[in-house]
């Protein structure tokens, strides 16, 4: 008995959505939403120049909620292939000693995430130079600069003694979230690797080849691990512990050792980046991750071949069209038949749709590492309500001028038969609807 009751009610509510689904006007109104959306996009002026909401959410991605609030990566294990040694504020001579000490633990690759501009005290420079000469498995960073047409590498004080290099540049707006990186760039006529690519080439040639074969200009970074006072998903060793041999002899053996600056103080923002893992997913104000940990995340991703698959744009548009169409059908049903409830239903539908589709996006991202851009869908749902009014006016005009048959008929049209504008709204709407549907069939 109960299941029949549930089935009957479900049918009833499904009917609310599907009643107008195959009407010509529902199709055209949905298309109108997209036309409106495209027209808005074609306006060459940034209307959000003084829009605080738009500015605050410029860097926003729904999937960031998964990191910030949903503990997406809370149970990800420490990556045992990578060890980070915190160089702190060591001078060049101390860095030289540290590199030699790290090297004595037989790591497979040492990645140095520090660049050296110009000369300093000759004795200290000389110690560091010697350390570079001795350490054959060292890969160091350089800084790339995009000119008008080409990418060039800035000169570095120890270029002559460090043959293996990679640029440290990441992709992101100035004070913006780092979501992408470019694995290779062309310098002159040669392919020049990013630092993580250069490190992976030394550590795991198979993973390197896989990355190379992807032929992607830029890769989405799949962040999985962080390091802060509460969570340590990479092994961090302080330079003092390293120098004092306070480290197990097997900890660095055959591993990737990254040397870079780590600090846990939220007020120290030196080399800290905004990432999707920031606790604030909207209006990010304090950078959350040291640059070296961003690089470590890239290495982990490439070694695990754990790339994020971004859905093509057309999929996002198709999803937006289907969802927009279903919403339009529901909105038109209430617009014509229960106008008094129209705005309430529309607002509730928008709210629940945002929650549901944001969830769908997060779920795809979490379970399948697929990034589907749901923003078009959400734009369409938001615009649909306003577009109905425009559409109604437009088809009203077509009806008067060319006798275009529409389910909107005389609804809300003051120029049409004045007798329709009595208080018996519902009755009128039903009548007009019935007549048009007959003609359709």
């Amino acid at each position, binding site marked *: 008995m109960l299941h029949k009751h549930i089935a009957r009610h479900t049918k009833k509510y499904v009917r609310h959505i599907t009643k107008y689904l195959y009407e010509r006007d529902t199709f055209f109104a949905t298309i109108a939403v997209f036309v409106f959306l495209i027209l808005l996009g074609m306006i060459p002026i940034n209307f959000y120049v003084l829009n605080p909401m738009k500015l605050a959410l410029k860097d926003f991605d729904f999937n960031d*909620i*998964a990191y910030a*609030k*949903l*503990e*997406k990566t*809370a*149970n*990800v*294990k*420490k990556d*045992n292939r990578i060890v980070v040694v915190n160089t702190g504020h060591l001078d060049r001579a101390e860095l030289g000693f540290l590199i030699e000490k790290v090297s004595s633990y037989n790591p497979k690759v040492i990645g140095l995430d520090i660049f050296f501009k110009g000369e300093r005290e000759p004795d200290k420079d000389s110690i560091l130079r010697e350390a570079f000469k001795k350490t054959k498995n060292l890969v160091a960073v350089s800084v790339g600069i995009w000119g008008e047409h080409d990418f060039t590498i800035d000169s570095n004080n120890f270029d002559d003694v460090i043959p293996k290099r990679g640029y440290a540049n990441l992709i992101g707006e100035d004070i913006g979230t780092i979501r992408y990186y470019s694995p290779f760039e062309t310098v002159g006529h040669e392919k020049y690797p990013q630092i993580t690519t250069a490190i992976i080439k030394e550590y795991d040639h198979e993973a390197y080849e896989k990355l190379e074969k992807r032929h992607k200009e830029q890769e989405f970074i799949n962040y999985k691990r962080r390091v802060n006072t*509460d*969570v*340590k998903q990479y*092994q*961090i*060793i*302080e330079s003092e*512990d390293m120098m004092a*041999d*306070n*480290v*197990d002899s*097997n*900890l660095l053996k055959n591993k990737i050792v990254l040397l870079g600056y780590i600090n846990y103080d939220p007020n120290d923002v030196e080399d800290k980046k905004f990432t999707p893992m920031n606790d604030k997913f909207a209006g990010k104000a304090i950078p959350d991750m040291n640059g070296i940990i961003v690089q470590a995340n890239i290495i982990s991703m490439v070694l695990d071949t754990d790339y994020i698959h971004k859905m093509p744009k057309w999929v996002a548009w198709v999803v937006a069209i289907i969802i927009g169409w279903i919403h339009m059908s529901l909105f038109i049903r209430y617009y014509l038949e229960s106008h008094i409830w129209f705005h309430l239903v529309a607002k509730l539908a928008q709210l629940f749709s945002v*929650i549901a589709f944001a*969830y769908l996006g*997060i*779920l795809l991202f*979490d379970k399948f590492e697929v990034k589907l851009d749901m923003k078009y869908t959400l734009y369409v749902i938001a615009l649909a309500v306003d577009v109905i009014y425009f559409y109604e006016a437009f088809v009203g005009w077509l009806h008067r001028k060319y006798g275009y048959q529409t389910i909107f008929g005389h609804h809300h049209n003051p120029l049409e038969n004045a007798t329709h504008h009595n208080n018996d709204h519902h009755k009128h709407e039903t009548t007009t609807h019935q007549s048009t549907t007959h003609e359709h069939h």
Partner: protein
Amino acid sequence: MKKIVYFFIVAFFPFLVSAQENMFVIYSVKGTVSVVENKVETKAKIGTIINNGSTIKVGAGSFATLLCNETKMFSLNKAGSYTTSSLSDSCKTNNSSVSANYMKYIWNEMTKSKGTPEKNRKAYMSNVGAVGRGDVNNVWVDQRLDSVNYVSGTIPLSWKCFVDEAEEFEFRLYDASKTKVIFPKAVKKKHVNISEISQLIQPGQTYYWNATVKGEPENTARQYLHYKTKDEYQAFLTTIKKADGTESEAEMNFRLGFVLEENHYIGEAYNYYLKATQLDPTNSFYRNTFMSFKKDFEIK
């Protein structure tokens, strides 16, 4: 027979899985920390794997941060020996799914109401318009207890806390070097009675103490505690006993209580204030002073 064996395997499989051993790795270490394995004690180093059945020893003032199953981090900052089985509770992880967390988050956001800064200043007053200096510490010790001269009896070494939800505190008693912890204790109350440490301290020696909210960094401030010998105290008492004019017994006791309090003999001051109020119970000044004294030092 086979069926019975299969039955037991199937029935107890979940228990076998849940009884899986945890794996501990030392993530960082400070001070004297060692690992005892097969009765052999070795210095704990970063990256040392602690096998099942091993014991980790943490010395006074030292700490070790461990990772359990390469996921869950926790610290051992109390001196003592810990077996791997005693640490298994620290391995518990939050296994709620992203979907469950999403629903929880949406519900909390939809039902949360903080009001506006104009109407609910309590919820919006976490912004501090000042700089912080020194360590972040939520425990504060009254200046009156900055120095204590102890002779006998008991008084509470108390503190105040700025965090309402703090449930447990770490009390530490240091030797004269201010660095070596000779008595660490986790307490739920905001005080430790001197009687609890009287066995550990020697007359004529200087000690220091402090307290922190459990889990917060160690407080750099140290409160002075001098265990005076009976002779030292008697010599001091003789100097202050002399009075220029005549005074009643109650007056003398009150005066001695006051001078002893000024000179940080809190326990002894208590006795003299008490005596003064007993000798002259009608004197409201004595009574009020004694009550304020008890309140200031949180003597019940």
